[in-house]
């Protein structure tokens, strides 16, 4: 994606660059084009006006040069304009620059010729004017002076005027001869006639300047500046069309690149669309996979729960297993009693000393002992059964405790553990409960205590029962030194155990807590006691419980 953005930015940048090139190549000349064309036009016009005024000045006598001076100023502007970088004609190419230089050089030369023209023309005009005046003034033509001189003068004036109007070499030669003669013979100085001297001087000026001036005018009017200007113009147009070509190339290139860019963009869009599609599909797959995963997770969660429950029941079974050893003793003793009594009865029968009283007494003992065994068995059956579905029943606490003790009395006495039960327990204290469960809790606590204090020197477990009105409190205290603070929070958690691997499941206390709480009671560790002391607080009456709460407990 990043790559495409960089490419796109690069493409746009390239386009802008190309466009600026195109604009530059196009505008630099087109902007100036009109100015340059105007300059060419003005140049041509200025030169033409100058030439026109020169011809006028040559032919009409009274015209002043002020007009030509103005024309000259105009012409001076031409090259200033052409060489001004702002005009935009200089420095385009060498050919054009050279042609401009050629033109301006020629123009300079022409302007020098114009100055020469002005000087010479003034002289020539003056001389011609002078001679014309003499011709007009009668007294010069008809006088009473030297006839020969008059004739000469007349001839000079006529001939030179004729020459100035229609110059030809014969006339010029003839005139020159007369002038030369006059000057050579020194006749002028002797003659005292100032006007003849003047006439000769003027004629000399005419002879001297006429041809030159005519050539000069011809040169000026037909000067090559026009050709050179045309060349400049031609070169300019060539350069201009070249620049137009360049602009066109840029234009085409611009178009091409634009097209490429368009295709590229379209290609990218297609790519993008495609990848977007892929993402969409991937998204859908992902969703279904998430659902699947969740399902799997739920399943595994259920499995875990099932396993946990299995573990919990197996823990029950394991505590049952623990009990089994103890139970063996418990059952063995009444069985022995029964056996003994049966032998006693058999002896009586065989002796023949059957005493009804004794028999009745003995059978009563057997009956009682049998009931005791049946009770133990029934207790075992209760343990094995899933207790949660069982309804609660009113049961004497002392009886529950006694039943429980019956499972472990022997075990404790074997290991030298003193099991004390508060004396004078009121057997009438009853609680609404599932006796098996309570018994299980008590048994669990007793077993825990047993494990904890087994190796101690001082081995005792005290169980007390206190009637608290609505509640009963069962305290089970052992000779242990309490549970370390950092473990107190953990002991109630499932699967936490300090026992050796294989010895405990870590479920005992958590199950016990669950059972007591399912009886709306409290299962706590009494921190105030110097010894390890668990306290069970149980209500005498069970309140109505919702089904969900029951479920939660399990």
């Amino acid at each position, binding site marked *: 994606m990043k790559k495409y953005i960089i490419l796109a930015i690069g493409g746009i940048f390239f386009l802008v660059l190309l466009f600026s090139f195109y604009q530059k190549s196009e505008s630099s000349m087109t902007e100036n084009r009109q100015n340059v064309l105007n300059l060419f036009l003005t140049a041509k016009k200025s030169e033409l006006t100058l030439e026109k005024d020169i011809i006028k000045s040559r032919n*009409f*006598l*009274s015209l*002043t*040069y*002020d007009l*030509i*001076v103005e024309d*000259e100023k105009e012409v*001076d502007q031409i090259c200033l304009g052409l060489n001004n970088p702002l005009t935009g004609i200089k420095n385009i190419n060498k050919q054009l620059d050279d042609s401009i230089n050629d033109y301006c050089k020629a123009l300079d030369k022409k302007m*020098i010729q114009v*100055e*020469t023209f*002005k*000087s010479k023309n*003034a*002289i020539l*005009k*003056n001389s011609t*004017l*002078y001679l*014309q*005046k003499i*011709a*007009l003034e009668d007294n010069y033509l008809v006088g009473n002076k030297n006839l020969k001189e008059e004739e000469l003068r007349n001839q000079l004036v*006529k001939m030179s*005027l*004729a020459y100035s*109007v*229609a110059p030809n070499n014969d006339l010029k030669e003839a005139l020159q001869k007369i002038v030369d003669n006059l000057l050579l013979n020194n006749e002028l100085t002797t003659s005292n006639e*100032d006007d003849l*001297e*003047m006439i000769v*001087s*003027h004629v000399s*000026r005419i002879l001297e300047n006429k041809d030159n001036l005519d050539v000069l005018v011809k040169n000026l009017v037909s000067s090559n500046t026009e050709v050179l200007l045309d060349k400049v113009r031609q070169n300019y147009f060539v350069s201009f069309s070249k620049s137009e070509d360049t602009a066109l190339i840029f234009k085409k290139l611009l178009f091409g690149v634009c097209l490429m860019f368009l295709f590229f963009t379209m290609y990218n869009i297609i790519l993008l669309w495609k990848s977007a599609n892929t993402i969409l599909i991937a998204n859908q797959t992902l969703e279904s996979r998430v659902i699947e995963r969740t399902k799997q997770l739920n399943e595994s969660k259920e499995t875990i729960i099932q396993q946990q429950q299995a573990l919990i029941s197996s823990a029950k079974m394991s505590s049952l297993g623990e009990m089994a050893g103890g139970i063996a003793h418990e059952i063995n003793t009444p069985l022995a009693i029964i056996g003994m009594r049966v032998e006693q009865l058999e002896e009586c029968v065989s002796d023949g000393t059957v005493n009804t009283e004794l028999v009745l007494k003995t059978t009563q003992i057997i009956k009682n002992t049998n009931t005791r065994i049946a009770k133990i068995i029934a207790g075992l059956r209760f343990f094995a059964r899933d207790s949660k579905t069982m309804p609660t029943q009113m049961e004497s606490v002392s009886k529950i405790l006694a039943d429980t003790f019956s499972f472990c009395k022997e075990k404790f006495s074997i290991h030298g553990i003193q099991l004390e039960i508060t004396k004078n327990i009121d057997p009438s204290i009853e609680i609404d409960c599932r006796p098996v469960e309570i018994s299980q809790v008590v048994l669990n606590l007793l077993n825990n205590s047993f494990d904890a204090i087994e190796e101690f020197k001082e081995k005792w477990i005290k169980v007390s029962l206190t009637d608290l009105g609505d509640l009963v409190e069962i305290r089970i205290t052992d000779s242990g030194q309490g549970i370390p603070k950092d473990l107190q929070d953990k002991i109630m958690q499932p699967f936490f155990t300090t026992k050796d691997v294989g010895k405990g499941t870590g479920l005992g206390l958590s199950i016990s807590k669950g059972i007591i709480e399912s009886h709306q009671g409290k299962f706590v560790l009494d921190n105030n006691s110097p010894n390890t002391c668990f306290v069970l607080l149980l209500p005498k009456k069970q309140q109505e419980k919702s089904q969900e709460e029951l479920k939660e407990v399990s």
Partner: protein
Amino acid sequence: MKFNTLLLAITISVSVKAKDNQLTNEPILPLPEVVKIDNLDKVTLGKTLFEDKRLSHNQTISCASCHNLNRGGVDGLVHSVGINGAEGNINSPSVFNSSFNFRQFWNGRAKNLNEQADGPIHNPKEMGSNWDEVVQKLKADKKYQSDFNKIYKGFITQENIKDAIVTFESSLVTVNSRFDQYLRGNEASITENELKGYQRFKSYGCVACHQGMNVGGNMFQTMGVMGDYFKDRKTPITEADLGRYSLTKDESDRYVFRVPSLRNVELTAPYFHDGSAKTLQEAVTVMAKYQLKRKLSNEEIDSIVAFLKSLTGETPASVKGVSK
């Protein structure tokens, strides 16, 4: 036949009066009636600069030293005197009406007043300075700082100094001479003698070169068209005598000068590039002799001189101190 046609053409070209009384087809044209001053501040600044001696190397010479504004724009000397008493080699031309001259300097080496200004500044015999020095000096002046600030956004530069001076010089037009009044149709403004002088001026051929609005100043001409002036002068040829030749090295340009304007000629003695003619009479005599091969009588000379004096115009307003 051809001859007659020519004569006819000449007769037609004789001056006639136009409807509004202005004479047309005269070889001399009147100066503008009024001088338009667009930027009074600039003209005033130009005048201050024109009269500022700091433009010379040792603070002794200003433009006005040689172009005295109260003496017809000249110094009245044969050759002008520059810094340290250095004597130049040429007669100062008048600054009045100089903007109407087609070239500047006697040999026309400057195309305009702007180019001209560089000359005297750098000429060691005139101001002996250079623009960097001048700019440096003027920058130290608080008054100039504020003046240039007003007109040129504070830039005291060679270009701006020249621009101000040229603007002032262009305002130096001597309008409303009696002869201009005559050209504009007021026949009474010149005397009969002056008119006679003008007619002679025309018919003898002076007008062939001294023509146009500035009565000269619009072409080059050889000094000595019909006689060798320099040979007769009997003093050695100087660099200044060479005229345009010193620029072009073209033999035909030897002794060729810009034809001087004859306006206010009454005030600009001595005359010619070499200042050799002390009076107008003398100048007219020399011109007639060497340019026209003509010997003039005193009466003729006087009338021409009288005409020339009618070309003296009013002192330019900007000289007197321009007021709004």
